[in-house]
Each structure stands twice: as structure tokens, then as C-alpha cells.
């Protein structure tokens, strides 16, 4: 190379002159600042919730909030604050949703991961996932204007607003989540397991039930837990389709209000700051926050243990 000495000399010269090192040090500082936003968000959420919840509990006792059964926050003569009616509604809607999401989600996952041909998978999976992309307000409309009327043909005692219909629709919404997380768990079971099983003449179903699912079980359970967390936090479907009755009941044909729907009710139109009812919002929200947080951590813990298996 004719200019060979010049190239390496040039490189050396440029290196010395460059301000690269400075930039090299500035970049991580900027990136760190950006990364801190997510931490600040968490801090912000916690602070807001805790401060205002403290205000609430300075006026209402823990005991009343967690053990009494009446929820009439705006009753002029005798306001009562109990989270139990809201909890029961949240619990019921979640259970109903999981009754739909778990069986359909899991079998869908098994079909996609074990049975479907590659081309079938390519068609079916996006369709299943479309369900996850539909805005919840649309599901709410669907539950209220379609599913409830249809269900009422079958169950005449069903109220116009009830917890059953939004529960079912919420389950449908969660199917893709359970399906795709379970599918991830199933497909991360090494193929060698399947080959090992099928090489003995096991049918696909036998290999799946006896080897693949047990090997993926923690990932599958984690997907259920995440589904539960999602159901607990879901807002619009129940707000639209389950009404605002704050009764402590387990009758799924009745109108009930979940924690999330309560928050919407109190904030929609923007409740005046400073009243006990307004602060109750935060007490409910922090309960909701910790419930979902616990579920997410649990899911994480379970799936982490599962990943260690391979």
C-alpha cells in the first residue's frame, strides 16, 4: 500500500485531536437522565397515592375502610367508606374473566406452539393478538350493547348492568395475553424435549401433556397471574357495563362497582379536591396499586424460577 504509513499516521493524528472522549462521557449522563424518568414516575405515583391516602385515613379509620361493609361516600348525613363492596366486585369480575381467559388462552397457546404448522401459526397468531390491540372502550361498548343483551336472553334475571358480562368480555380481552405468554413458555421448552418424547412413539398430545406443559408450567402460571393483574386493573369495560352499585354482594347478575370504576366515577367530571370522598379515591387507588404490584412481582418470581430450569 502506497499511502500505508499515511493512513495509520492520519488515524493517530485524528484520534488525538478528536473530542470523542468528551462526548463519550456526556452520552451516558444524558442516557441516565432519560432512564431516571421511569423511576421518577414510580416515585411520583407512590408519593401522590401515599400523601393523599394519609389524608384519607386521618378522617376515616383503617378499620372502617377494610372491615365495614357499607360504601356511601357521598351520603350527606352519614357517609360510609368501605372498600369491601369494591373489592368483591373486582374479585368477581376477575374470577369470571379468568374462567374465560385461562382455558381458551392455554389451549390456544398449545395449539399455536405444538400443533399449528408454521404457515397456520403465521395467520392465526396475529388474529389472536388483534384482540389485545382493541381499545378497552370498544370492549366496554361491546359488553354493554351486545353481550349483555344476548346474555339476558339466556339469563332473564340478569340486570342491565351486571358484573357477568364485563367479566366475560374482560376475559376475552385477556385471552391473547395468556395465550402469547403461555406460548412463549411452551416454545422455550427446548425442542429436544419434544423430540425426546416423540421419539418413543408418543403422540403429540401425550408429549405435550406429559413433557412440554410440565416443563413450561411456571411460565404458564405466570401468564395466568399476569392475566389476573390485568383484570384487576381493567377500567373501562366495567365502568360502562357494570354500573355503579356499591353493594357487598356475590350475585354476578347484579350491578356492582369495581375499584377502578369507582375511581372513574369519582374523578369523571373532576370531583372537587379536599373532601373525604375525594381522598377516598387515593385510598382505593393505592389498594389497587399494591394488588397489581403484588401480582406482577409474583408472576415475575414464578417465571424467573422457571427460566432457571434450563
Amino acid at each position, binding site marked *: 500500500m502506497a499511502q500505508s504509513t499515511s493512513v495509520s499516521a492520519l488515524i493517530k493524528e485524528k484520534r488525538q485531536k478528536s473530542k470523542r472522549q468528551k462526548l463519550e462521557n456526556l452520552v451516558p449522563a444524558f442516557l441516565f437522565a432519560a432512564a431516571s424518568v421511569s423511576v421518577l414516575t414510580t416515585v411520583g405515583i407512590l408519593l401522590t397515592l401515599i400523601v393523599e391516602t394519609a389524608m384519607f385515613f386521618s378522617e376515616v379509620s383503617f378499620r372502617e375502610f377494610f372491615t365495614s361493609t357499607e360504601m356511601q361516600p357521598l351520603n350527606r348525613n352519614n357517609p360510609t367508606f368501605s372498600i369491601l363492596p369494591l373489592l368483591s366486585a373486582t374479585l368477581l369480575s376477575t374470577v369470571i374473566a379468568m374462567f374465560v381467559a385461562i382455558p381458551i388462552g392455554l389451549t390456544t397457546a398449545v395449539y399455536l406452539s405444538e400443533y399449528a404448522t408454521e404457515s397456520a401459526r403465521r395467520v392465526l397468531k396475529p388474529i389472536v393478538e388483534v384482540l389485545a390491540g382493541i381499545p378497552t372502550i370498544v370492549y366496554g361498548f361491546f359488553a354493554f350493547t351486545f353481550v349483555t343483551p344476548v346474555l339476558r336472553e339466556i339469563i332473564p334475571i340478569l340486570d342491565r348492568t351486571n358484573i357477568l358480562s364485563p367479566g366475560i368480555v374482560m376475559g376475552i380481552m385477556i385471552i391473547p395475553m395468556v395465550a402469547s405468554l403461555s406460548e412463549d413458555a411452551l416454545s422455550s421448552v427446548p425442542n*429436544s424435549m419434544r423430540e425426546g*418424547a416423540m*421419539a418413543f*412413539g408418543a403422540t403429540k398430545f401425550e408429549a405435550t401433556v406429559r413433557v412440554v406443559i*410440565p416443563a413450561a408450567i411456571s411460565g404458564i402460571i405466570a401468564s395466568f397471574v399476569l392475566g389476573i393483574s390485568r383484570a384487576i386493573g381493567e377500567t373501562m369495560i366495567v365502568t360502562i357495563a357494570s354500573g355503579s352499585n356499591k353493594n357487598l354482594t356475590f350475585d354476578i347478575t347484579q350491578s356492582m362497582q369495581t375499584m377502578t370504576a369507582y375511581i372513574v366515577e369519582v374523578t369523571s367530571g373532576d370531583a372537587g379536591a379536599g373532601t373525604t370522598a375525594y381522598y377516598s379515591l387515593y385510598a382505593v387507588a393505592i389498594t389497587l396499586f399494591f394488588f397489581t404490584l403484588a401480582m406482577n412481582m409474583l408472576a415475575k418470581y414464578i417465571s424467573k424460577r422457571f427460566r432457571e430450569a434450563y
Partner: protein
Amino acid sequence: MSQVSVKQNAKVELQPQGEKAEAKKEIVYSTEKVNLWYGKTHALHDIELDQREQEVTAIIGPSGCGKSTYIKTLNRMVEMNPDVKVTGKIYYRGQNIYDRRFPVEELRTRVGMVFQKPNPFPKSVFDNVAYGPKIHGIRDKKLLEQIVEESLKGAAIWDEVKDRLQENAFGLSGGQQQRLCIARCLAVEPDVILMDEPTSALDPKSTLKVEELVQELKAKYSIMIVTHNMQQAARISDRTAFFLNGEVVEFDKTDTIFSNPNDSRTEDYITGRFG
């Protein structure tokens, strides 16, 4: 230590038998003009190959030449890949296994397979071995125990695991796992055992043990083994097939292949000119 004696037994027993039996050895598998495509990739070209009873056939060749693909056509495991097309005929004991009506599950009970990476199930040692018999309907606990013990003995691993049958198989060393997989194979009493680079993930000692085991198993089973280690092929096989780019370049007695190959490409490969 017991391993070593086993090995010597094997040698003493097998060498003469091998020679005596030569003439009447039946053909277990025969492959006729097999072609295979993965989608548009033509991975096997006109393969013709026989596997005889109580023999070890080694398949050698550079990476990607179709060794794994070929032995997976023998128990139709290759069909687990999407978009595979196979033409030609493969006869197992006289039946064309690519016949529509041939039940693939039955074929696979008769033909065991051992993979490159040991792949025990995440279950106990016992359950690993009992898995096959259970699937085939054996429920009797006593009988299962007996099968497990004999299979583990057959795979020369019984002494090492007899006290930890209930432990998870993932706790075993790589070499033990591989022999466990062989035991798992034996438990369904196969006729043929296919092995795809069974020692390539193992350390030298474990490799030796598995090689000895293969020599020993030959007395009862027909074995086809893929290996990238030519010395291994030379040591343990009766016949060797050399694959290149999806074709069988040469298939002959192992001695012939290694001492006096017909094809110059075989020679180049064996002397390490490529691969």
C-alpha cells in the same frame, strides 16, 4: 471400574460374532433414492444406504452435509420440521415407512433415538426411563421398576444412579445424562437405535464410556451413529457412509473407507483437507 470389564467382555464377545455372522446378517433398514427438501433447500440427494442387523453404521461428513437430516428420516422425526418433503422409499423390515398408512408412533417405538445434546426430561431419573413404557400403557409399578433397572443396567449407568432414582435428571453430569437417554431408549425395547453425534457434547471420559456402550449394545440392537469424529467412526463402526452436500459419496466397510477410499473427496475429508 466395572465399565472397563464390561468393555472387555464386549470385545471378547462381539468381535468373533461379528465375523461369523457376516453372511446371514439381515437388512433392517434400506433406503432407496431418498430425496428431501426443507422448503426449497434440497438437503438430501438420491440417498441409498442399508443398515444391517447387529451392526454399527457410522455416518460422517462435514457440517451441514445432511447427516442429521438423514437419520431423522429413518424414524420420520424429520417431519417435525415444517415444510419438509420426502421422496423415495425407506423400508424398515420390509415395510415402506413413508407409506401413508404406516403408523409413525409404532415405528418410533421400534426405533430408538439418542440426540446430540443429552435431552432428559425435567423429571426424576426413574420417570425419565419409565416414560416410554408408561406411554405404551404399562402401569404396573413392579414391572416398571424392573424395566427401569434393566434399562439403566443396559446403558451401563445403573451403579451410578441407583441411589438417586428419585432425583431430577438435570442433576446428572452430561455423560450420565447421555447414558440415561440411552437407557430411556432401551426401556421401550427398540430394534434399532439411531444416534446423532451422541458424544460431541461430552468430555473425553464420558465419550469413552458411551463408545464402549455402543460396542456392547451391538450384540442386541442395530445401531446407526452420526459422528464428526472420524477416529470414533473408525473405532466403533462396522460400516461407514461419507456424506457430502446431501449425497452419499461412499458407503463401505469401515476398514475400506479409512484405509483405501474409492473417492478422492473421501480421502480429502479423512485427511483433513476440509471440514
